[in-house]
């Protein structure tokens, strides 16, 4: 700008900078003055006042647009522009509330889905433990058995590891446990952790009252009955008593001194549970089943974590830990030969719910991204339609020199407004959904499941990123459009003329094909998961689940020693089996598909030569009389255990069918020998295969030994009954109390509930994927509907002509629907290719379903087709109602 010009224009510029409101008012006044004068003139020409007003408005065009164009002419600063664009953008959105609401709804749902999934990933996988320091350096430690599953550690192994690991900052134990709380005259079950004494120091959490544990409290057998309770526990049970320290609480019938209260918002270190109390590891026998294990290197029961020193990688630490393990193998071959110790990132922790939910959440991240893309395509489509409506406005603004950059800025600002509102709504949605995962899981009473979504800085940053990306996409799609503007044509006041329509139709059709493609992929995924859930549900676990309830009697807490427990078990089983309404009752160390793990043992089999790198190790269960009959596991040959199979009799075992096939070549093994934990055992029976740990597992070798020959003081009690749970339990409790008034029953569960819980990961995956799949389908249908309605509205002339030339309503209906189906077919074509490439990612969640199952693809196609036809019906109906006479007259 030349100096002279600058001088002349300065007053106007200063005014519009310092008094923007006044300038704006004047602009409005000027335009309205014009309008009124025009009306007056129209009236003088003989129009009615109403007609005069309408005619004047028409001549003028949209007042708001003209105002904005005048503001453009001023050409302001960047900030001024932005504020202006923002204001104008809001006004534009308010002018078409239907469009705005639809666009914001689409974005809210899609961004909400993403925010929720990210918040779960953050809260469950990456930062699962609120208040715990340096979680990025925290790793889970688990043992491995070659060629087999994950195992835990023994306390002596853990201590050696902690002592020798120079790359570790610290190592601590946190083993989940349950406890019965005696409150007045009733008992409640709650969840807590057995921890090493360094626990609170190692995780950097400091009790708000009292203290954490001290080094000496690790040592001894039941020597330190002290407990730190959770904030929630303190609030609810003790009404926030400030004098709580030093009081006692009975846990598993043992009085514990309360020494500390954990801070608010600390839930312990187990993904899936909110811990209510922490006890030192020296109290192990009171809380963990299976006797005193602190000095037994072969007893692997410890769930532990290490925190690495800053800058140490997992691989480096793993190397050092493997070296330590090699030394342990060498020093203690009897217990440690062939075993390894492995570090796991927190999100892969094998002994809590993180590992279980990992595949589901991985799939969810992808699915949510798909939904976001579909929503963006949808909003882009809506904006394209609107940008056609706004063609005239855009042309005028270009013509008076707004510049394409300025228009782009305006469109991006509008995109930003939409995506910001969508993101805000999305985060609200994610916040409301933060406890959704727990709601989806079949939860047992008193389970205290806790799987929160965490909306923290990182999730917020992710949301902001998505918001900007969406703003960019939704702003740029209509901006493509301005390249096709014919300024001169549009400047002529009326808005006829079909400019750039071919390319626009292509963009829109492309977007719809894209949407259909993505939602078809999601549909296939959802259908696969649904099919697999069906199969899991209909798969027999190998035992009959109906009318079996499971409970446990608190004999350890009551201080029973082994002989007392044996007598008690015999008497109880005899009493229960004589009761009316109880078909049979049996004891077992572990109930299938529960939380407790089985014992395992290296085995040797007479006449079976293992290959050099094979170390046969098989899991087993210690069961009482009539166990197979009570659970309904068929006995294929031989006999069940008898009362005479006790500690004084020769050792016996019952093997399952898979074990018979693997180690005896399918020959009847009755009378043959098997070496378990170094002792020879004779096979007396063969049981059918059943599910032991999860419903998805493939048949594996397994065997049973008599409870009496591998004794457990507090086994599960399985009861097959024809009565309701309540009355059966009442009867059991009566018998228990007839033997000992002080004994109580632990939490009970039906076998069916146990089976349902085992299908939970699949249930969660199915629910989430099909919810989002449904959402995607809906969005795609809206997109298709939009395109078809628009196409019909644009081609009324063609439709009218066709009708005039003899096409009837049915012809037109067919025409429109077939156009819609052609787009759908394109989307399904690409979607099928995409699905074939992607569904194998679901493999870990699928059970007995091929990711390429043609029936699943066909049913997804059927759903897609029905949806497409319904989306086209309304536009098609409108087309069939075209009035040829009126169309041709225009």
């Amino acid at each position, binding site marked *: 700008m030349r100096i*002279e*010009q*600058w*001088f*002349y*224009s*300065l*007053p*106007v*510029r200063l005014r519009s900078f310092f008094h923007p409101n006044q300038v704006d008012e*004047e*602009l409005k*006044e*000027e*335009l309205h*003055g*014009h309008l009124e*004068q*025009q009306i007056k003139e129209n009236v003088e020409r003989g129009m009615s006042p109403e007609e005069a007003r309408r005619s004047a408005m028409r*001549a*003028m*065009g*949209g007042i708001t*647009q*003209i105002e904005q*164009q*005048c*503001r*453009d*002419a*001023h*050409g302001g600063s960047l900030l001024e522009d932005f504020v202006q664009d923002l204001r104008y953008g809001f006004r534009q959105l308010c002018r078409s509330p239907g469009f705005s609401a639809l666009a914001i709804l689409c974005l809210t749902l899609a961004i909400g889905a993403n925010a929720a999934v990210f918040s779960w990933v953050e809260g469950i996988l990456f930062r699962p433990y609120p208040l715990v320091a340096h979680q990025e350096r925290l790793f889970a430690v688990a043992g491995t058995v070659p060629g087999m599953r994950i195992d835990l550690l023994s306390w002596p192994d853990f201590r050696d590891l902690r002592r020798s690991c120079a790359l570790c900052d610290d190592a601590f134990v946190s083993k989940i446990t349950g406890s019965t709380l005696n409150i007045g005259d009733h008992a409640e079950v709650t969840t807590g952790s057995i921890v090493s004494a360094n626990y609170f120091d190692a995780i950097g959490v400091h009790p708000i009252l009292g203290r954490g544990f001290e080094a000496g409290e690790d040592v001894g057998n039941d020597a330190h009955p002290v407990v730190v309770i959770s904030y929630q526990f303190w609030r609810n049970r003790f009404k926030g008593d400030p004098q709580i320290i030093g009081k006692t609480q009975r846990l598993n019938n043992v009085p514990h001194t309360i020494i500390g209260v954990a801070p608010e918002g600390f839930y312990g270190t187990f993904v899936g549970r909110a811990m209510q109390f922490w006890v030192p590891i020296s109290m192990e026998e009171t809380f963990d089943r299976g006797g005193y294990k602190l000095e037994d290197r072969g007893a692997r029961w410890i769930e532990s974590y290490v925190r690495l020193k800053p800058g140490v990688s997992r691989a480096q630490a793993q190397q050092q830990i493997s070296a330590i393990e090699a030394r342990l193998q060498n020093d203690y071959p009897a217990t440690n030969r062939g075993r390894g110790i492995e570090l796991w990132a927190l999100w892969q922790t094998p002994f809590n719910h993180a590992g279980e939910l990992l595949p589901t959440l991985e799939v969810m991240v992808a699915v949510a991204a798909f939904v976001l893309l579909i929503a963006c395509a949808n909003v882009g489509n809506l904006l394209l339609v609107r940008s056609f409506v706004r063609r005239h406005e855009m042309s*005028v*603004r*270009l*013509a*008076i*020199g707004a510049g394409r950059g300025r228009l782009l800025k305006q469109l991006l600002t509008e995109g930003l407004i939409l995506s910001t509102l969508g993101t805000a709504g999305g985060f609200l949605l994610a916040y409301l959904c933060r406890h959704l995962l727990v709601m989806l899981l079949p939860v047992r009473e008193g389970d205290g499941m806790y799987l929160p979504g965490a909306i923290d800085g990182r999730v917020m940053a992710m949301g902001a990123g998505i918001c900007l990306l969406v703003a960019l996409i939704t702003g740029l799609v209509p901006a493509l459009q301005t390249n096709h503007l*014919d*300024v*001169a044509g549009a*400047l*002529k*006041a009326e808005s006829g003329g079909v400019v750039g329509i071919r390319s626009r139709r292509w963009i829109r059709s492309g977007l719809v094909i894209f949407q259909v493609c993505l939602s078809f992929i999601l549909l296939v995924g959802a259908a696969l998961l649904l099919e697999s859930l069906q199969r899991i549900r209909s798969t027999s676990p190998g035992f009959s689940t109906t009318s079996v309830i499971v409970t446990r009697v608190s004999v350890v807490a009551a201080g029973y020693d082994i002989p007392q427990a044996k007598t008690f078990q015999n008497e109880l089983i005899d009493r229960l089996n004589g009761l009316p309404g109880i078909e049979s009752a049996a004891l077992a160390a572990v109930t299938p598909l529960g939380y407790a793990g089985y014992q395992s043992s290296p085995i040797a089999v007479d006449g079976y030569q293992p290959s050099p790198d094979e170390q046969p190790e098989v899991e087993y269960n210690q069961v009482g009389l009539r166990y197979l009959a009570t659970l309904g596991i068929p006995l294929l040959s031989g006999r069940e255990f008898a009362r005479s199979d006790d500690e004084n009799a020769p050792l016996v075992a019952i093997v399952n069918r898979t074990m018979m096939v693997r180690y005896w070549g399918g020959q009847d093994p009755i009378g043959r020998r098997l070496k378990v934990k170094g002792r020879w055992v004779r096979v007396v029976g063969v049981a059918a295969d059943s599910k032991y740990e999860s419903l998805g597992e493939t048949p594996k070798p397994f065997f049973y030994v008599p409870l009496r020959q591998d004794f457990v003081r507090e086994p599960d009690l399985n009861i097959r009954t024809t009565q309701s749970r309540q009355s059966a339990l009442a009867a059991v409790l009566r018998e228990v109390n007839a033997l000992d008034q002080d004994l109580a029953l632990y939490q009970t569960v039906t076998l069916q509930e146990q089976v349902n819980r085992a299908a939970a990961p699949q249930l969660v995956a199915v629910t989430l994927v099909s919810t989002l799949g449904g959402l995607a389908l809906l969005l795609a249908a809206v997109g298709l509907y939009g395109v078809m309605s628009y196409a019909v509205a644009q081609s009324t002339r063609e439709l009218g002509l066709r009708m005039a030339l003899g096409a009837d309503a049915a012809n037109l209906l067919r025409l429109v629907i077939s156009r819609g189906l052609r787009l759908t077919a394109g989307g399904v074509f690409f979607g099928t290719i995409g699905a074939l490439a992607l569904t194998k990612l679901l493999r870990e969640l699928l059970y007995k379903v091929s990711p390429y199952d043609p029936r699943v693809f066909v049913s997804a196609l059927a759903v897609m087709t029905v949806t497409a036809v319904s989306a086209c019906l309304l536009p098609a109906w409108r087309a069939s109602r075209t009035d040829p006479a009126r169309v041709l007259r225009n």
Partner: protein
Amino acid sequence: MSKPSDLVQGTLDMLILKILALEPLNGWAISHRLKQVSSDVLGVSDGSLYPALHKLEHLGWIRAQWKSSENNRRAKFYSLTQLGRKQLEKETANWNRVSAAISGIVKLREA
């Protein structure tokens, strides 16, 4: 941007300057005058006029003042500045040169 629009745009600016060179007018009167003198051939809508006026004001070619119009209403009257007068002379000269050249060509083809 395509050629014809440049012509329209440049022409609109020049026409406004020319009209205002005769006397200060408000927007409505300018619009009226435009329609009169061009017999609606240019088809300039009011929607295009006001943004153009504001642009010219910001370029310093015209200035605006609020005055009472004949029927005692407040209206914004635009008048030419010195700078605008120079711009008009320049554009008129330019226009005359271009239109002379074009009409020369057109006549040549008729002959």
